[in-house]
């Protein structure tokens, strides 16, 4: 650990023990300049009440992938911004895992409104898995709007996490067999909807219904 790192820690570290844990995780795998920048982002995240683990993970990912220091710094800084956006979009009081999943989704093009919609549909449960499925559908080639609408609809109908995971797997299989991603999603979403309890219908994107209210056009259970 360089003198610069030590001085930075002495001046800015809110809790020596907690900072030491993050530093220990980095374990000398970054050059000193990059470590200082990363720890600054970590400290900023902590001050703002954001989870710090994803930032350390991102730095370690870069180290394992032998990325240059500046690239790691940029990746960590960008992730910090996304974590804050995700935290605000998933308010109130999202858990660290949800914030990290939200930041992931934002990286692949999901909108803040999409995150807010997921949270509104599932106010009291983790949305890490639905956001993960959303991210993966978009990564597979489904448009953001279509993927968001499909996942939101299924969530409203009460789809469980493992059902969403299975749907994602099926979409992937069909795409591998030559189907277009959106056609594969439409087919499988219809199939899953058929086995879910009635009560939800397709809704206009952006209809972030408040908890306890029903979206326009939906039937009563």
């Amino acid at each position: 650990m360089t003198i610069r790192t030590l001085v930075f820690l002495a001046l800015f570290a809110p809790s020596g023990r907690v900072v030491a844990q993050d530093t220990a995780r980095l374990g000398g795998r970054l050059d000193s300049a990059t470590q200082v920048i990363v720890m600054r982002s970590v400290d900023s995240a902590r001050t703002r009440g954001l989870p710090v683990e994803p930032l350390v993970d991102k730095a370690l990912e870069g180290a394992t992938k032998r990325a240059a220091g500046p690239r790691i710094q940029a990746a960590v800084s960008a992730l910090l911004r996304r974590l804050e956006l995700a935290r605000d979009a998933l308010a109130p009081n999202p858990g660290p895992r949800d914030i990290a999943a939200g930041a992931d989704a934002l990286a692949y093009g999901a909108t803040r409104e999409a995150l807010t919609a997921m949270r509104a549909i599932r106010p009291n449960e983790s949305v890490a898995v639905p956001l993960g499925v959303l991210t993966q559908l978009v990564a597979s080639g489904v448009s953001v709007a279509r993927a968001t609408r499909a996942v939101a609809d299924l969530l409203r109908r009460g789809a469980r996490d493992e059902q969403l995971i299975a749907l994602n797997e099926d979409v992937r299989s069909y795409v591998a067999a030559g189907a277009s991603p959106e056609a594969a999603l439409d087919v499988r979403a219809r199939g899953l909807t058929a086995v879910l309890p009635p009560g939800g219908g397709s809704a206009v994107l952006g209809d972030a219904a408040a908890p306890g209210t029903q979206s326009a056009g939906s039937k009563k259970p």
Partner: protein
Amino acid sequence: MAERRGEPGEIVERALESLRALPPAGTGTIARIVASAARVRAVDTSPNDDDLLPFASPRWPRWWALASLAAAAVIGVLFVGVWKSMQPRTASSADADAASTIAAGGARSTVVPIMGSREAADAAAALIPTQFVFDGRARRVALVGDFNNWDDRATPLEREPASTLWSVTLPIQRGRHIYAFLVDSTWTVDKRAPVARDPDFGVTGSVIIVGRP
């Protein structure tokens, strides 16, 4: 040499200096231990067996040696039982009470019920034992991902005897994760899993989404 070591009274003091040197922890060692403990905690319901051997007394060495051998035989049986219970469960061996299997990409996750306080159950249940499998010839296969500090020493895979299948099971939080195998130190994606683009570093990985029934 004797002059450097001083008087006989000091020699043990100098020996202690040598003995008190603290060995360092290798990177990944701590993570490996924690992952191992969490894995066992998730499946273990056996009673306390950490009193492996009573402390030996020198007064009756021969008697104690016999008793210790007998205790060691019993402990050996217990070890085998605990070791067997630590093996990852497959769908075919799932418990009737709660275990279920979710296939996600190239990996398989198995949920095992946790006993204990509700808080402990919630905390432990947030970690889902998840198996990763690699098929291929290699000298060493390691798993790296956002769940083990991307440390190539934290999670080695074990090869199935007389097979090219390697596997490891470790507890992972619910949600989407990125990972890869290091096959003889070469970055290798999981062929059976979705590919993860990498907008940050440009190195493609594999994706697993871990859920819970």
